[in-house]
């Protein structure tokens, strides 16, 4: 087990380097960052040259990448065009997005799995059909439609919530945005759990548990659900990264100043440092979430061993 974890951590290194290199190259293809920095009016050539030198943009791309990676390992993600350190931007943006992601994951887990168990056990009954239909609707409606609709209804028409989130972005303010962000995944979690439960219901170990005379809730939670959760955990694990990076739309609608906001701002303004820095951290989040999921398998199913 220990060796497995170490091997996985080592495997992350080439993935990490490859991913960051790709991002770095892609951002560099977008165009000259200095042109974006200067805006509608071109900077005079002297200032442009000076800025290029200061940001290290006058060097060849491979050299820029090496310098950048060297700095990253010392915890220096560079400086954004606004004069702020990228680490400073991260320290304000990530807590907000993590809170948003936590809210979304809680929705997925609580509502998604509950509905999944419910429908899985009552397969073919009206409640199953209703929930299936609802999830289909949720999956087919894009997030920005759900978001704008909820914002307009709850925020403007009924006045239950504020349409935008304050800079503090407390948990209570993030409930509606979190629900919007979670909506599509929530529907998938429901469907995944449902199928998995329905399949495992007929398996031998469940029949044995029932035959032993165990109480119904214990059969469902300890035996049926625990074994059925494996695909769901995989999904939620990879979804953590997707939610954090994919919050751009939701964060824009509700004016949340998190990772999505910084990424959007960075892309629009050709701010290489911000984009590469944030994506690098997101890559790490993905890698770690995946590792955790793999390790969780063993917790859920003792038959799975790592070597």
């Amino acid at each position, binding site marked *: 087990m220990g060796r497995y974890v170490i091997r996985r951590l080592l495997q992350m290194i080439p993935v990490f380097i490859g991913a960051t290199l790709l991002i770095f190259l892609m951002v560099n293809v977008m165009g*000259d960052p200095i*042109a974006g*920095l200067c*805006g509608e009016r071109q900077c005079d050539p002297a*200032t442009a040259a000076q800025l290029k030198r200061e940001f290290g943009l006058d060097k060849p791309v491979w050299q820029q990448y090496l310098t950048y990676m060297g700095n990253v390992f010392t915890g220096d993600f560079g400086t954004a065009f606004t004069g702020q350190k990228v680490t400073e931007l991260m320290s304000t943006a990530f807590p907000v997005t993590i809170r948003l992601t936590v809210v979304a994951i809680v929705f997925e887990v609580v509502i998604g799995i509950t509905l999944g168990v419910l429908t899985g056990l009552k397969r073919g009954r009206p409640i199953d059909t209703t929930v299936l239909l609802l999830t289909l609707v949720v999956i087919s409606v894009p997030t920005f439609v759900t978001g704008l609709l909820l914002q307009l209804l709850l925020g403007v028409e009924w006045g239950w919530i504020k349409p935008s989130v304050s*800079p503090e972005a407390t948990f209570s303010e993030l409930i509606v945005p979190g629900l919007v962000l979670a909506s599509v995944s929530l529907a998938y979690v429901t469907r995944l759990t449902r199928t998995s439960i329905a399949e495992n219901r007929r398996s031998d170990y469940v029949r044995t548990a029932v035959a032993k005379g165990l109480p119904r809730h214990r059969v469902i939670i300890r035996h049926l659900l625990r074994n059925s959760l494996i695909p769901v955990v995989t999904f939620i694990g990879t979804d953590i990264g997707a939610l954090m990076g994919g919050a751009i739309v939701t964060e824009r609608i*509700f004016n949340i100043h998190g990772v999505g906001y910084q990424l959007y701002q960075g892309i*629009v*303004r050709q701010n290489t440092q911000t984009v590469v820095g944030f994506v690098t951290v997101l890559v790490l989040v993905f890698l770690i979430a995946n590792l955790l999921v793999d390790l*969780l398998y063993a917790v859920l199913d003792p038959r799975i061993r790592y070597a």
Partner: protein
Amino acid sequence: MRGATHAKWAACAAAVALAATACGGGGSSDSGGGDGSSVLSASWGDPQNPLEPANTNEVQGGKVLDMVFRGLKRYDPKTGKAEDMLADKIDTTDSQNFTVTIKSGWKFSNGEAVTAKSFVDAWNYGASLKNNQKNAYFFGYIEGYDKVHPDSGSQSATTLTGLKVTGTDTFTIKLTQKFSTFPDTLGYAAYSPLPSTFFSDHAAWLKKPVGNGPYTISSYTKGSQMKLVKWDGYTGEDKAENGGVTLKVYTDNNTAYTDLMAGNLDLVDDIPASQLKNVKSDLGSRYINTPAGIIQTLAFPYYDKNWNKSGSEKVRTGLSMAINRDQITNTIFQKTRTPATDWTSPVLGTEGGFQDGLCGDACKYNPTEAKKLVQEGGGIPGGQVKITYNADTGSHKEWVDAVCNSINNALGNDKACVGNPVGTFADFRNQIGQHKMTGPFRAGWQMDYPLIQNFLQPLYYTNASSNDGQWSNKDFDKLVDRANAETDTSKAIKLFQQAEGVVRDNMAAIPLWYQNGSAGYSDRLSNVALNPFSVPVYNEIKVS
């Protein structure tokens, strides 16, 4: 239990990996508490550059500077005329050497007095190459600029020789050429005075800028919001009529508009294009739509021989006549643009040089004449006009397509004109800078100061800073030189208008429309107006 050991390992792995990235935690938001009764909230965008006066060349940072700073002159929010603010008098006999006397008694909000040195130090800082100030070229007329800001190589001086402090309240300016309207340019934010703390503790100053204007910054959370409060010690006459302004950063102007509708925000100064249809019924008289000093044009690549041969001016005029400006401004822009009839802006006023109808028939929709002129001029180079624009911001695609449609209909050729989108603004600027344009391209000009000179010289003078199409005309250059040398302002304006006539005769760029500024506000506010730079006049807003 086996499960427990697995869980422990999982937690360990996470800890190791997270420690390696060392990403910081802890928010730094300022929860300043409830809104004061007379404090208003307004929409804002994250300024692109650090908030230094000589480094801010866009509206969002400009809003803050307008509240926190006062310069020698200030443009009247209504008429756009330059009026003395800190300047007691600016004397000149030859339009080249100026003596500035500033009013005494002015202070920065940290208590420091505003002296001649505050100006000279600030201007020297702004001009110096090593400080990377984007507005440095504003100091380009002052003697010694080529030393502190050479076009290439390193600077050989740190201060402008043309600036001399001659007393606590007086300093002299020497320009490299005659420039009669120079004093009127001094209302631009780049010419603001700076306190000594700006130089001694720059980092702290940037965190919380200190100026001499009617407001002071009470808290600033970069990227989120800025709270400005009325400064009771303000010396000027234009004191703030409200208790303060809270600027909130919005990524999407649609959200700001929704917040206004929900009563969560008091002032939105950028109505989203998608809401223009509803805004009148939503807000009624609380919607304002007033002219701003912005003109949109189509510029041409004069470095391309096809667009720079004899007869091309006929093709350009023909294209101009093929554009149905009225229809496009009414349907696409919902009257937030006005069809252009000259190359300046109505905010200048006729006294300032604006000439309604100068373009004449050349800017009126006339398909038959358009077709004739294009044919006389030898037809469209390459058989097709490609209008290049950036597709990432604004709603440029809509109007470019509409313009092309209009041209195609007028010329009776489905393929006469197509839009040529460029993915990002930076790439668009890049291609323009590298002279890669093969046909007309989107050009917009937002004035720096309300002078006719600012609409002509930077755009059409040979090798001027924003002459992206490299248009060059000796007659035009001569007239501009003469206008700048003319000490009598009204005569100078006449000469600029003659120069504008040269632009018209050659159709150097096709004027499309004047852009308006639009804003909406909540019923708590009154006396809301936009100045000619389409920035709300915050200090005059009353909160009930």
